[in-house]
């Protein structure tokens, strides 16, 4: 018998085992899963009720929409940034990201959900006619309207739609070979869906070649669009609403926060998949440590960006700058700011330098929970504070300075609590439902690594050798 065939047979067995295990897990319909789905659906319905309650109050009073805008920004910062965990290490050809890259890409589907949540904000944000400062050189004098009064609305919507579209394309392309596997080997409704989604995929060399190129190009475009969406959202839907808040670093701070929160989201998702999803054999220390290092670096970056902005205002001490510091940091939202500072910077810094925590499986996810809560509080601090500034949408109120007195803290109403609970649950619900159509672990990339992986005796131990195709 040809010795090559014997080796090929054992490799085939390994690949088949991966196929069968992951496919069986993907198609399994546990009660546990559907119970969680039902619970999330109930919370989501509460969110819809909260939204209807909010709608009854109309769009004129901007302050009541602060928590809503914060929720939109929170989902943009966490779920819509999570695909970056798949994109960046894939471009760097890192092997450790293989088991988690699909999970990260599935989060891009939540972008579609967030796009729907974005629609009411278009009504909340007034047109440029209220004479606020903006990126858009618009003047109210007759004959001087150089740009449409709804320019922020138009361009941000276009950018957000593009981001969501690229994210979904990226997910679909990356899932094509796995959908073909479900088409060929799966059963039930999932097979029918997979058949529709993977129609033309047969695995020719050309198709594989193009798949790699497309994933690279779409990944780069997703990153570029994500940064741009954060730029527009942080300027047009946040910064310009606060008179005197002039901060060139805010857009990149907003985007860097998203990278940090995206990594934290993935860390937590990974932990849940390992602990409750039955993927213990696929998600291990490599992934926790790989993401842990990124989380640590991004937490340091959080401080760097925050201090760079804060320093300008604090050192400048002009009346406007002091008012902005009061509004966002030391005034009505001081307690929230302390929470953000501790959870996004101090906690990750001091926990991650402590070896027993850094090297454990539960430590980095625990820090990730802190970062997600910190990001949530940060979005509330910024957006609720910005939307509580009096005079938004009113051309008769001066947009050059904040009121000299401290503004009151705007506490959430019952509808806000429903919206917060409902929209977070809605995001997780969309993610979990998507995992029923697309396998949460990238099956083809798991099988691919079998080709490049050998175990070799090295003196008195055995080492794993991994090849990297160019």
């Amino acid at each position, binding site marked *: 018998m*040809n010795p*090559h*065939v014997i*080796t*090929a*047979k054992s*490799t*085939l067995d390994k*690949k*088949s085992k991966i*196929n069968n295990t992951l496919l069986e897990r993907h198609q399994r319909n546990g009660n546990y899963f559907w119970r969680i789905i039902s619970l999330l659906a109930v919370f989501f319905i509460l969110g819809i009720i909260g939204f209807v309650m909010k709608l009854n109050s109309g769009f004129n009073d901007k302050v009541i929409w602060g928590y809503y805008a914060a929720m939109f920004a929170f989902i943009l910062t966490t779920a819509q940034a999570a695909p970056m965990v798949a994109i960046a290490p894939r471009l760097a050809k890192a092997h450790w990201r293989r088991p988690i890259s699909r999970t990260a890409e599935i989060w891009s589907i939540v972008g579609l959900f967030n796009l729907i949540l974005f629609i009411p904000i278009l009504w909340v944000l007034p047109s440029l006619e209220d004479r606020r400062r903006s*990126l*858009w*050189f618009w*003047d109210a004098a007759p*004959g*001087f309207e*150089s*740009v449409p009064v709804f320019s922020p609305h138009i*361009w941000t919507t*276009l*950018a957000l739609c*593009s981001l969501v*579209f*690229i994210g979904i*394309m990226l997910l679909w392309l990356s899932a094509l*070979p796995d959908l*073909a*596997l479900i088409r*060929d*080997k799966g059963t039930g409704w999932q097979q029918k869906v997979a058949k529709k989604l993977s*129609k*033309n995929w*047969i*695995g*020719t*060399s*050309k*198709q*594989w*070649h*193009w*798949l*790699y*190129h*497309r994933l690279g*190009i*779409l990944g780069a*475009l997703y990153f*570029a*669009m994500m940064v*741009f969406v954060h730029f527009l959202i942080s300027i047009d839907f946040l910064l310009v609403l606060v008179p005197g808040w002039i901060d060139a670093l805010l857009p990149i701070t907003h985007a860097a926060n998203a990278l940090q929160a995206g990594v934290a989201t993935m860390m937590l998702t990974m932990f849940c998949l390992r602990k409750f999803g039955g993927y213990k054999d696929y998600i291990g220390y490599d992934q926790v440590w790989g993401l842990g290092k990124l989380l640590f670096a991004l937490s340091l970056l959080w401080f760097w960006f925050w201090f760079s902005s804060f320093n300008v205002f604090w050192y400048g001490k002009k009346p406007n700058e002091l008012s902005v510091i009061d509004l966002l940091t030391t005034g009505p939202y001081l307690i929230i700011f302390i929470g953000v500072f501790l959870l996004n910077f101090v906690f990750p810094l001091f926990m991650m330098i402590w070896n027993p925590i850094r090297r454990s499986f539960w430590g980095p996810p625990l820090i990730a929970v802190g970062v997600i809560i910190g990001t949530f509080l940060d979005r509330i601090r910024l957006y609720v504070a910005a939307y509580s500034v009096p005079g938004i949408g009113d051309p008769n109120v001066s947009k050059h300075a904040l009121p000299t007195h401290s503004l009151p803290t705007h506490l959430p109403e019952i509808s806000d609590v429903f919206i917060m609970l409902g929209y977070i649950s809605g995001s997780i619900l969309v993610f979990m439902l998507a995992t029923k159509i697309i396998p949460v672990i990238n099956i*083809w990339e798991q*099988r*691919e690594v079998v*080709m490049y992986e050998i175990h070799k005796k090295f003196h008195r131990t055995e080492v794993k050798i991994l090849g990297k*195709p*160019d």
Partner: protein
Amino acid sequence: MKRSIIGLFLDENLAADALDDLRKAGYEMDEYEVLTGLPYPEGTFGEDEPKHKLYRWPLFGAVCGFIMGFMITAGTQVAYPLVTGGKPVLGVPPMAIIMYEGTMLGAIIFTIIGVVFESRLPRIFMGAYDTRITEGYIGVTVTTSEDKIEEAEKILKNIGAEDIKRGWE
């Protein structure tokens, strides 16, 4: 009329040998293909490296988008030249935002069109296929005219294909 057959192999070397023999027998490059459930490194089976021109699409789209963005912004301002406070007629900072977004939008739209064109989607004639490909078998398909299909089948059999399947049966 075109006919298609697929030979299934367990060993990569045998699949590569099959391709060599098909080439020697005078089959053209577009008449045979390797099907795999995994992305093997280019050239594993001795096949020619696929050439693509996908990178041209986003570049072309970006240029078109940039020009569109420039024309919208500069064109509007030049058409209605209103000098405000002695400032130049063309305000570059707001123009740059729209030009950037136009560039990105052009690049994205053209990339999507490019992906469809370069993939030759939809593939009208699928050829022979076997679901064992997704299990890890390597398939060598030959899609050619009716008179040449028998010889191809013979080549695949001689090399040691585990199974041969005719696409038309």
